[in-house]
C-alpha cells in the first residue's frame, strides 16, 4: 500500500475530489497547509508598515491506495489540480507498511 499526498491550490479541491471519486477512491483526508516555493506571496500594508507574507494557502490531500492504484490516483490528482500556473503544487508517494480501519480493526487493502 502507498500513501499518495498532494499539496494543491485550494480552489482546485472540488475538481480533485471529483477526479478521485471517478478513479474509484472512496476515502481521503484533507487538511490546510501553507506553501513556500516559486509562487510569490503578497505584501500587506498596515498603517504604512509593510508585511511580506511569503506563505501561500494550500490544501493537502492524502489518499491511502493499494499498490496497483498508485499511478491512477496520482495522475488523477495531477490532472485535476493542474492549472498550468506556478504554485500548482506537488504530489508524492510514500510506502505504507500497514493500514487499519479503526471501526472494524481490519488490516491491509481491506481497510482502504
Amino acid at each position, binding site marked *: 500500500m502507498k500513501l499518495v499526498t498532494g499539496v494543491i491550490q485550494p480552489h482546485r479541491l472540488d475538481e480533485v475530489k471529483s477526479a478521485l471519486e471517478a478513479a474509484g477512491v472512496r476515502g481521503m483526508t484533507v487538511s490546510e497547509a501553507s506553501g513556500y516555493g516559486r509562487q510569490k506571496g503578497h505584501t*500587506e500594508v498596515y498603517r504604512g508598515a509593510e508585511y511580506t507574507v511569503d506563505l501561500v494557502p494550500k490544501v493537502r490531500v492524502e489518499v491511502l491506495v493499494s499498490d496497483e492504484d498508485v499511478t491512477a490516483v496520482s495522475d488523477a490528482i495531477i490532472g485535476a489540480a493542474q492549472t498550468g500556473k506556478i504554485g500548482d503544487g506537488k504530489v508524492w508517494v510514500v510506502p505504507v507498511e500497514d493500514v487499519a480501519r479503526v471501526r472494524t480493526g481490519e488490516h491491509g487493502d481491506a481497510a482502504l
Partner: protein
Amino acid sequence: MEEFVLDTGNTAWMLTASSLVLLMTPGLAFFYGGMVRGKSVLNMMMMSFSAIGVAGLVWAVYGYGLAFGTTAGGFIGNPADALLLSLDDAEWWGASITGVPALVFAGFQATFAIITVALISGAIADRVKFGTWIAFAALWVTLVYAPIAHWVWGGGLLGVGPIVDALSLPIDFAGGTVVHINAGAAGLALALVIGKRKGFGTEPMRPHNLPFVMLGAGLLWFGWFGFNAGSELAADSTAGRAWVNTLIATCVAMLAWLLTEKFRDGHATSLGAASGVVAGLVAITPAAGTVQLVGAIVIGLVAGVLCALAVGLKYKFGYDDSLDVVGVHLVGGLVGTILIGFFATNGVLGSFYFEGSLDGLFYGGGATQLVTQVVAALMSVVYSFVVTFLIALLLKVIAGWRVTEEDEVGGIDLAVHGESGYETITEVR
C-alpha cells in the same frame, strides 16, 4: 417665518435619534460583512464605511439643499438655497413645529442618505473596484437619493401639487419609498449591469461569520428606533407609537421568517432570524407612525413570509443580488408602503405628518390612499432603477466595475485593500 423656540426634549431625542441612525451603517457593515466569505469581509465593510464618508460629505456641501432646498418644479431642491453651511434655525419648516434646531434636522437627514447608499452595496458584494464604488456613491446620492427625498419629504411632487391633489398625500413615515424601495431597485440595476460573481450558483458562498450577522442585525434594530421613532421629529405619542410598532412588527417578522424556513427547509436558522429582523424593520419603516399595533403585526407577518420567499428569486432569474437587497429591501419596502393603504389610521392618531393623507381601506378611508401608495412606490422603483442603471453603465464605460477574476477568486480584500481580515497561520509565529 416664525421665531425659533427651542424644545430641549425634542432636540434631545433628535440628537439621540441621529446618533442611532449613524450607528446603523457600521451595523450594516457587520450584517453584510458576516454574510460574505472571509476573503472579502473587509471590502464589504469598506463599502459601508466609505458610504458614510462620501454621502456625508456630499450632503454637507450640496446634498441637503438638493433634497430640502427651495423646489424647482417639484423635482429637485436648490443646492445653494439651503446650504448646510448657513442653516438658520428659524428658516426651516419644522423649526416652529418641533422646536428642533435646523442643523439637527440636517444631521438627522444626512444619516439617512448615508445608509441608503450603503444598503445598495449588498447587491454587488465581493467583486467591484473600490474607486468605482466611491464614484458611484457620490453620483447616486446626487442623482437618485436627493431627488426622491425631495419629492417625498422636501416639498417636492409627492408632497404637494397635482399628484397629491388628484389622489392623496402619500405616506412614507420614515423611508419606505425614499430609502428601501429606492435602495432595492438600485441594487437590482447594479447587479444586472455588473454581473455575477464567479461561481455564483455553482460554488458554495456561505456566510463566513454568522455571529457578525447577528451583531449587525442587533445594531440595526437598535439604530432603527432612531430611524423610525426619530422620523416624527419629536418625542411625543406618535414617536412612541412608531417605537412600539418598530419593536412588534419586527418580532413578528422574525418569527414569520423562521417559520417559513422551518416549513420549507426543515431548519430555523440564525441567518433567517437576522434576515427576518431586517425584513420587519424595512416593512414597518414607512408605516411606523401611521398604523395601530394590529397593522404593525400584519405588516411584520407579511414581510417575514414574503421576504423569506423572495430571497430565492435571484437563483430563478439568474441575477446575483449577492446579499438580497432586492429580496429584503425592495420587497419589504413594497410590503410596508402598500399595506399602509389598508392600515393607515391617521384620523385617529393625529400628527402634523399626516395632514392631507387619508385613512386606509380597512379604516374607512376607501381605496384612495392605497392607490396613492402604489403610485408613490412605482415612481420610486422606476426612477431609481432607470437612473441607477444609467449611472452604472456610464461608470462601466469610464472606469470599469469588476476587479480581475484572479483577484476575485484570490480574495478582494488582499487585492484591493492589501489586507486580510484575520490573522492566519502565515502570520502566527
